[in-house]
């Protein structure tokens, strides 16, 4: 099958949607399909060979944050040329309701168009102000995919349409084969040692870092050798200032890590802790930790409960409760057999999120979209007759 995928955000900046698009494209290529990805990118930036650059992305304050997007007549011409040259069986756009290449591609194409909605709120203020325009965009889409139950709920309730829920994939092999950081995770025996991991923005309230901090401080007092490995954006001083000075040497801060180092970091801990207090729609990091074979301890949020199969693949603790978390941590650190049972179950769970599996489900949606339209993806003058 010839597949055209449009990524709205520049590959020059790492991000969830970009990673998703690259992993999906690689999984589809591995399954024997021809894939071309259109994305904004600087002229001189190195790109995988299946990516076609649509030109430089312009940083634009947009919808409360800064988005690097490509939009305008030049981008439109490039999108249309790409569609014409590509001769695709199916066009797959990501986040089509942002002002981006994806929107241009949807408006320019006729034929089987599949759209993936990533975030729960893809409906921008610009488009919300123009209901008619929104309808025209949505009408061009043949089949919709939502990556989480929450994103699907938004589709159903606010955009008057259904969507097939297909979760984010995870490149299981990349995580399972990653080399732990030198010297990690270290000793872990009854009553002593052990390493906890946290990845994310520790200053953001909903990530729940203070819950883990309180549990760690309490547990470290009774458990010699307990260590904490933290990765994510932020200032080291802001992190260390939260802890009593005598614990500083037991905390290691890696800063912002690359995808490869993220995998190594997840392999370097005995327990990965996700103390989030809300706002998670999927819990990508949990599937990644499971893929790395690390035991997961997570707050009892809906999204986490779903990923962890109701607690069989990882332990849940009452959301926002440091005492509950401390109890679970102390119990699991002393119980290697319990950790092994959880990881074994985690392997089974994460197999459903492996990219080849997810890509085959996406292919079924492509097939359904192709059946509901006649012919291939063709370029269409969208200012003219629709």
């Amino acid at each position, binding site marked *: 099958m010839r597949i055209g995928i449009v990524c709205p955000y520049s590959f020059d900046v790492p991000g969830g949607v970009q990673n998703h698009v690259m992993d999906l494209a690689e999984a589809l290529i591995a399954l024997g399909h021809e894939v071309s990805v259109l994305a904004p990118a600087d002229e001189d930036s190195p790109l995988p060979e299946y990516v076609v650059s649509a030109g430089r992305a312009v940083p634009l304050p947009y919808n409360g944050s800064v988005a690097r997007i490509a939009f305008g007549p030049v981008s439109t011409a490039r999108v249309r040329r790409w569609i014409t040259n590509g001769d695709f069986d199916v066009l797959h756009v990501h986040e089509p309701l942002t002002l981006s290449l994806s929107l241009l591609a949807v408006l320019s194409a006729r034929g089987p168009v599949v759209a993936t909605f990533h975030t729960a709120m893809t409906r921008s203020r610009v488009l919300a102000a123009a209901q008619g325009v929104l309808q025209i965009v949505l009408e061009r889409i043949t089949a919709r995919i939502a990556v989480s139950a929450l994103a699907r709920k938004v589709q159903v309730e606010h955009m008057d349409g259904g969507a097939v829920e297909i979760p984010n994939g995870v490149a299981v092999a990349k995580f399972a084969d990653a080399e732990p950081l030198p010297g990690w995770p270290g000793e872990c025996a009854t009553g002593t040692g052990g390493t906890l991991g946290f990845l994310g923005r520790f200053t953001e309230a909903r990530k729940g870092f203070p819950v883990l901090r309180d549990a760690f401080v309490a547990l470290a007092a009774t458990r010699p050798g307990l260590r904490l490995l933290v990765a994510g954006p932020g200032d080291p001083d802001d992190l260390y200032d939260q802890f009593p000075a005598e614990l500083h040497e037991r905390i290691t801060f890696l800063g912002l890590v690359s995808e490869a180092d993220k995998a190594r970091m997840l392999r370097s801990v005995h327990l990965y802790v996700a103390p989030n207090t809300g706002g998670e729609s999927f819990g990508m990091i949990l599937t990644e930790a499971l893929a790395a074979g690390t035991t997961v301890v997570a707050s009892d949020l809906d999204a986490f409960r779903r990923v962890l199969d109701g607690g069989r693949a990882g332990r849940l603790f009452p959301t926002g409760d440091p005492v509950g978390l401390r109890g679970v941590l102390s119990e699991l650190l002393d119980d290697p057999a319990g950790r092994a049972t959880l990881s074994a179950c985690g392997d089974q769970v994460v197999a459903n999120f492996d990219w080849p599996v997810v890509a*085959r489900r996406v292919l079924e949606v492509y097939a359904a979209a192709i059946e509901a339209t*006649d012919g291939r993806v063709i370029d269409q003058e969208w200012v003219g007759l629709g």
Partner: protein
Amino acid sequence: MPHMWWVVAASVVVGLVAAYLIWTAGRVERLQGRAELAARALDAHLLRRAAAAAVLAERRFGVELYAAARIALDASPDEREAAENDLTRQLRGVQLDPGDPDCAAVIAASRRLALSRQVHTDLVRDARSARSRPLVRLLRMGRGREWPRYFDIDDPTLVVPADVPAA
């Protein structure tokens, strides 16, 4: 010559209205056609599932499942939704083993049916909303073609989607 400008303005307006009407007619036509194609695809997947269930029933699970599959295959259009729901209920009532090729065929057909139903529902909704616009009704665009109908059945998905066999 002020009245010349009136002529120019009037022709521009007439031109814009005409372009809008042609565009709207094309849009109604396209959405209607797409809903019809989706209905055909849905029909094919319903038949495929019922056929797979009948094959399975001949080997295992016996008379009731076979009867439900036959009734679904032969149902007249106004009984079809109920017949398909019966078949879904029958299939939910038996223990399907994903390792068995006939069971796997039924599971796969059900999953594809669920996708096709989702797409059909969305496209029917688009087509109906385009056709129910006042201007479209007034000018009777899309006349001569039946209003697309929803196909209202329970979600036919059988098991939590796990691995999808390679096509």
